[in-house]
C-alpha cells in the first residue's frame, strides 16, 4: 500500500472532518506518477523552488513555470539507476538541512535572496558530497529540460527540424568564438 492510500484511509477512518496537521499534508505525493521515487508534495515544492532559483523567470519563463522540476523527477525516475536515485533522494534531504543550517529555515520558506545564497554556495561546490551529488543530477536534468523545451527550441535557440542545406565552409565572426 502506498502512502497516499494510507493517508486517505486515515481520513476515512477518522470520518473525514479532521484538521490534518501540516506534517501529514507534507506526506502527500508528488503531482506526477512515479514508479521508483517516493517524493512528497513538500519535496516537489522544494524542487520547484530550486529549479526556479537555477533558471529564474526573467522576461522569459523560469524553471518552475516550465515544469523543469517535474521533468527532472521523470528523468530520475525513468532513466537513472538505483544508485543515482538514492543519491538524489538523500541529497535532497541533505540540501534542505543545509538550507536550515545556513539560513535558518527550509529552503521553500526562505526569501529569493536567501535561496540564491544557499544555491550559490552549492554551485561553487561548498557542500557535502551528498548535496553536491543531488545538485549535479538536478542541475544537469534542469538544463537538459530547458534546452530541450518547446520555448527554447522554437523561440530562444531555434532548432531546425528540416535544415534543407549544408554549408561546409560557413564563415564565423571572430567575436563568436569563445
Amino acid at each position, binding site marked *: 500500500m502506498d502512502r497516499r492510500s494510507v493517508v486517505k484511509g486515515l481520513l476515512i477512518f477518522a470520518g473525514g472532518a479532521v484538521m490534518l496537521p501540516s506534517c501529514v499534508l507534507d506526506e502527500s505525493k508528488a503531482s506526477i506518477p512515479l514508479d521508483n521515487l517516493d517524493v512528497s508534495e513538500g519535496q516537489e515544492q522544494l524542487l520547484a523552488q530550486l529549479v526556479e*532559483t537555477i533558471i529564474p523567470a526573467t522576461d522569459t519563463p523560469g524553471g518552475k513555470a516550465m515544469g523543469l522540476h517535474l521533468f527532472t523527477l521523470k528523468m530520475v525516475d*525513468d532513466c537513472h539507476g538505483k544508485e543515482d536515485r538514492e543519491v538524489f533522494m538523500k541529497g535532497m534531504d541533505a540540501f534542505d538541512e543545509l538550507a536550515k543550517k545556513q539560513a535558518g529555515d527550509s529552503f521553500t520558506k526562505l526569501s529569493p535572496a536567501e535561496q*540564491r545564497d544557499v544555491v550559490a554556495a552549492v554551485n561553487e561546490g561548498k557542500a557535502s558530497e551528498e548535496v553536491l551529488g543531488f545538485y549535479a543530477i538536478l542541475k544537469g536534468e534542469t538544463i537538459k529540460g530547458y534546452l530541450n523545451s*518547446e520555448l527554447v*527550441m522554437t523561440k*530562444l535557440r531555434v532548432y531546425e527540424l*528540416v535544415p*534543407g542545406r549544408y554549408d561546409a*565552409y560557413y564563415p*564565423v565572426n571572430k567575436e563568436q568564438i569563445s
Partner: protein
Amino acid sequence: MANLNIDSVKQRTYDAIVIGSGISGGWAAKELTEKGLKTLVLERGREVKHNRDYPTTNMMPYEFDHRGEVPLEIREKEPVVSRCYAFREDAMHFFVKDSEHPYVQEKPFDWIRGYQVGGKSLLWARQTQRWSDLDFDGPARDGFAVDWPIRYKDLAPWYSYVEKFAGISGNNDGLAELPDGDFLPAYPLNSVEDYFKQKLKANYGNRHVISARCAHLSKPNQVHLDQGRGQCQNRTLCQRGCPFGGYFSSNSSTLPWAERTGNMTLLPFSVVESVIYDEKAGKATGVRVIDANTKEATEYYAKVIFVNAAALNTNHILLNSTSSRFPNGLGNDSGVLGKYVAFHNYRARISAEYDGLLEYATDGRNPAGGGYIPRFRNLHKQETDFLRGYAAGFSANRYKGEDRSGFGEDLKRQLLNPSWSNWKVGSHMMGETIPKEENYVSLSADKKDAWGIPQLNISVGYDDNDEKMVKDYIEQMTEMFTKAGFTNIRANDSKQAPGLDIHEMGGVRMGHDPKTSMLNKYNQLHACQNVFVTDGACMTSTSTQNPSLTYMALAARAVDYAVSELKKGNLS
C-alpha cells in the same frame, strides 16, 4: 474437397518467393516483379508503409518523454539492442527487442535486428562504397577462406545499375582501391576535413580522405522522383524513416516500385521456418511459413526462391531446412553452411581537437557524415604483421556550446548565448576480419523460439589478427592526427562484442568449388539450383567497405541470371 485443395495450392503458388524485405530482399522483389514474375515477399515483422508508418518522423526533441533517452527499465531488459548507437527513443520501435527474439551466445555477440517491412534498410548508416579487385582478390592473394568466384568486372555494371536507381552521392575520386561510380553530387568536406585530406596526402601520399559516399538524394534525378522520393533535406533523422524519401530504403524505393508492377504480394507477419525440398524433383518447391501471430503453418510454392532474410537469419533458415537429401541444411553437401562467419572490426575510435581554421564552421547538417578514409594498409602487397586492413571514418565538427557553470540569471544568459567550440575531430575503424571455420552459427539443440523453431546459436569472436589491427589503427591514426597538428588526442578500444558493427557476413559463402562453398558465382546454391542467397550470408570475405551496396548489386545480378535461366527452362 480435392478441387478445393488444388485451388488452395494454386492460390499459394507464385513464380518467385523472396524471403525478407530488407535492403537485398527489396532489390530482389523489384527486379523479379519488373521482369514480370508474380512474386511473394515474406516478411516476419509488421508492415511499415513509407510515411504512414513513421510515427516519430516529424517530432521535435521536446515531444519525446525522455528527450531521446531510452528508459532504464528497457535498457536493463534489452541489454544487447540498447548498446546500438541508433537505439534511441525516436527509433526504438524499429529494433528487435532481445527479450522477444532470444538467441544463444556461445561467445558474446550483439545481434542487432530489424523485424519489419524494410528491415534494417530503415536504420542503416547509408554508407555505400564499391569493392575493387583489391578486395575480391583478398582471399586468393592472402590465403584465407576460398577464392571469390567473381571479380570487379562481373559486378561493375550492376553497381552502376543499383547506384543509378538508389541514388548515391559521391565524387569520382580516381582511386584504384575504391572504384568510381554513377554518383549524384557529393556532400563536400568541410574546412578541417579538407585540411586533413591535404595533410595526409603531403605526409603519406597514398592515404586519402574523400567525401563519404552515401545513399542520399543530394540532387534527385527523374528516376528518383518517379519513385516518389525527393531531395534530402539534411535532417539527419534518418533512423525515424524519412518523409522526403531522402535516403534509400526498401520502404521508400524498391518495395513501392515492385508494388506498382502489380506483380508483388507482400505478406508481413510471416516467419519462414524452412525451405521445402522435393527429393523427386531435386529442387526446392516452396517455403513453410508460420504466422507470427496465430502460429498457424502455411506452405507457399514457387519456381525460384530468394533467401534474403539478413545474414544470420538466412543461415538460420537454411540450417533448419533439412530433408533426407540434405540432413544438415539445404544445399549443405560441403558442411560449410553456418561456418566462416565474419564481420567488421569497429572496436577502435579516436578523437582530438584542432584550434586552426576557426574562421569557418558548418551550417545545416551533412547527411554523409563527413569524410571516408579508404583502406591503405597491405593494399598492393603484404606490409604489416597482420592480414588485410581497415577503412576509417573521419569527420570534423564544431558545436555551439554553452557555459553551464553559473546559476540564476547568469546561467540563463549562458544557456541562451552559446558560442562556437573549437574543432572536434574523430575517426572510427572498420576493419576486415578473416572468415574462419571456428566462427560459426548453428541450431540450438534444446532451445526454441516462440514459433517452435530452434534458436540460433552464435559462436563468433575476435582473433589475434583483429587485435593487431586495432593496435595498428590506433598507432597510425595517432600519428596522422599528430602530424596534422591536432591536440588532445584520445584513442579508445571499446572491446565491443562482434555484431555491434551490424556487418555480420558469411555462412553461406560463394565459391568456385561445391566442396568448399555453398553458392556459385551467381549466388545460386550449388546443390539446389532454384534457391539464391544474395544478402550478407553470401559473402566469402568482408573487406572493409560498408557492405549493403554490394548486396544490392549481387541481388540485381542474381535475379537477372535466375530469370534468364527460368526462361531457358533450366530451373524447372
